């Protein structure tokens, strides 16, 4: 149905928009002369999807996560977190306002719309998804990943397109290390940070001079996390018995596990993620390896305990980003869990938390920048303002765009000690981020320009 339009300076606008403009001009005319208005959109040159993407009454966020393949379960968890965050942004929810105090309804008053695409955890597919969101939907923000390989590819693509990108799950040291970019900000920690947090606990619990067998997925995340853990457990005199590298998506781990069984190791450090983690642990159990060797998980995967069972996970030390029982310690975690449970009828895993926090902190940066102009938003991020999160106070480090945040060390509970079917872990320690973080350039991060 066509609407009546007026023509102002040759551009077709609706009658309502014309009335708004007229009211604005009249309003401006009667404002006191000394009042300084925020910088107007028109002051900045076009860049990326700016100003097109934010010129209407809504803005678009493109979400690209694996919905199929090895990482599908984590991808679905992320989607739930994103959707909850977008709902909260649009309604100006109380939890959202705790994280991003300036939020009312929408981001800078604009409704947030979104689209979801399946990345299959493949870098090529992920980048194509982002490309479509940027060209077709004029996305002001693109986000999502479960594999660091896709996160790194997305980083570079978004930086070239000058559209801000936020990784979902990505544990590689490269994501905010050698592959860091000006246009990307990561919520979850470096593999190095996780390794530094869990190593002392492992040495304390299991003793000194142990031999370690690693199960490592064959890509950037696996290799960097393996190196980090190896480096920090050295302090306890731990040595490497074997490093079993398997391709992403392996379903048959028997030959790797036999090598582990014959390696004389005391500890199995499993770096695999998603379904690879589930299958390798289940099969290690079948081979009787976990009766002789102790399992440790330096970067825990969502739903792991649920899938392999409390029986197998009892006593296992793991480092993670978020676990729901943190609600006993952090009020925002309680609010988040409650909202999540009300919407989905289940508890969030750490992917959902990472997704929610990423969008909330982005909204906060945009609100503080008072603009969607990417360099302004990036500078607002880089200012390193303290943000309240579901795991306490956190902030972004300007030099490598990494969130400084605590690492959660958890231990699998005995089935008899579980208070309910979801009570898989006890929180051993919430290790503050500050002391764990290496120098921002330790992994070779060199940022590009803003424009």
């Amino acid at each position, binding site marked *: 149905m066509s609407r009546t339009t007026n023509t102002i300076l040759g551009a077709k606008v609706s009658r309502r928009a014309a009335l708004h403009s007229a009211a604005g001009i009249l309003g401006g005319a009667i404002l006191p002369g000394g009042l300084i208005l925020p910088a107007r959109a028109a002051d900045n040159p076009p860049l990326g999807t700016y100003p097109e993407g934010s010129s209407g009454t809504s803005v678009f966020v493109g979400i690209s996560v694996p919905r199929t393949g090895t990482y*599908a*379960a984590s991808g679905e968890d992320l989607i739930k977190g994103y959707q909850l965050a977008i709902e909260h942004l649009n309604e100006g929810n109380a939890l959202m306002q705790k994280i991003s105090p300036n939020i009312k309804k929408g981001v800078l008053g604009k409704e947030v719309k979104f689209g979801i695409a399946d990345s299959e955890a493949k870098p090529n597919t992920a980048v194509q998804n982002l490309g479509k969101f940027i060209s077709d939907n004029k996305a002001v923000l693109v986000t999502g990943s479960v594999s660091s390989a896709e996160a790194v590819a997305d980083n570079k693509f978004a930086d070239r397109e000058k559209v801000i990108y936020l990784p979902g799950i990505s544990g590689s040291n490269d994501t905010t290390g050698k592959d860091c970019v000006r246009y990307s900000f990561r919520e979850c920690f470096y593999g190095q940070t996780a390794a530094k947090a869990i190593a002392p606990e492992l040495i304390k619990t299991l003793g000194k001079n142990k031999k370690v067998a690693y199960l490592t997925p064959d890509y950037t995340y696996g290799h960097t996390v393996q190196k980090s853990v190896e480096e920090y457990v050295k302090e306890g005199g731990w040595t490497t018995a074997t490093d*079993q590298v*398997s391709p992403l998506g392996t379903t048959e781990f028997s*030959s790797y596990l036999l090598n582990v069984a014959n390696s004389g190791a005391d500890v199995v450090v499993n770096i695999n993620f998603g379904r690879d983690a589930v299958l390798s642990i289940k099969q290690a159990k*079948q*081979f009787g390896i976990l009766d002789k060797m102790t399992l440790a998980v330096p970067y825990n995967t969502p739903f792991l305990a649920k899938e392999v069972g409390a029986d197998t996970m009892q006593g296992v030390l793991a480092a993670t980003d978020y676990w729901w029982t943190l609600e006993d310690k952090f009020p925002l975690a309680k609010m988040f869990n409650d909202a999540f449970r009300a919407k989905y009828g289940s508890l969030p895993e750490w992917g959902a938390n990472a997704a929610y926090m990423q969008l909330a902190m982005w909204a906060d940066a945009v609100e503080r920048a008072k603009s969607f102009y990417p360099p302004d938003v990036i500078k607002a991020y880089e200012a390193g303002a303290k943000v309240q999160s579901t795991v306490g106070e956190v902030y972004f480090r300007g030099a490598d765009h990494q969130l400084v945040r605590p690492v959660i060390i958890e231990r699998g509970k005995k089935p008899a000690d579980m208070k309910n079917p979801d009570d898989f872990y006890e929180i051993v320690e919430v290790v503050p981020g500050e002391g764990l973080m290496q120098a921002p350039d330790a992994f070779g991060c060199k940022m590009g320009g803003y424009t």
Partner: protein
Amino acid sequence: MLSWANLLSQTFNGLVVGALLALISSGLTIIYGTLGVLNLAHGAMFMVGGYAGVVAYQYTGSFLVAIVAGAGFVLVLGVLMERLVIRHFYERPAEDQILVTFGLGIVFVETIRFFFGSLSQSMPPPSWAEGVTSLGFMIYPTYRLAVVGIIAVTLLALYLVLYRSRLGMIVRAGIEDSVMVDSLGINVMRVFMVVFGIGSMAAGFAGIVNVPIAPITPDIGEATLVEAFVVVVIGGVGSFPGAVLGGLIAGEILSLTSMINPSYSQVMLFVVMTLVLVLRPRGLLGAEGRS
């Protein structure tokens, strides 16, 4: 990781891994050898068999019922698929057959994902096959040993049906000259339908037998399909004994390479396939090209 104990363990493990690959690949090769249709939905049928069996297990708690249900469901699915879709593609170009089976595979995977989600589904081994067995040089999961026995019996049964029975004779005659077989009063189409069902059932059976080893997710069949193809190419396309031999060879390659460098074991599989294609294009036990 080179030691005699490990070499023995890995050689043995190669046989076990190979047995499962042999079963899956035999289904693929039976269908291709008989009907000339390359069934790209074979991996999905492996997965569907697993889910059908798990559902049956959840209702009954019986391993045996799960196996029968998994294999039976995919048998019926295969028969329906042949009757409703594949039959209309026998006379069409190979690329059409590939596209339609590929498409059906996607439909199966996404349907399962719709109903079961992406989290893995599991089923424990039967109580008599729980735990580990000591073989002297190594300990090995009892269930995996049982699987080798189950698969050996299944492969033997398949062999007898296809090569030593009246049905098998008709099938082979039908491949040579279906018009002549038809004019002898035998319904070749019905035989083809049964063969498609049996080939699919092999995948479904392997799917459910594999669940206690590797919990299933909707896309677990993808990697399986690729490996099954490699096995079929190594063994000889359309050759049943070739699929068995190819499966065992592939299992050994995966296992033994991992001793030297685990990250190369998958690569070696494809290296060997390439070598076979260069040196003996019809595969180790493949017959001369079918018309």
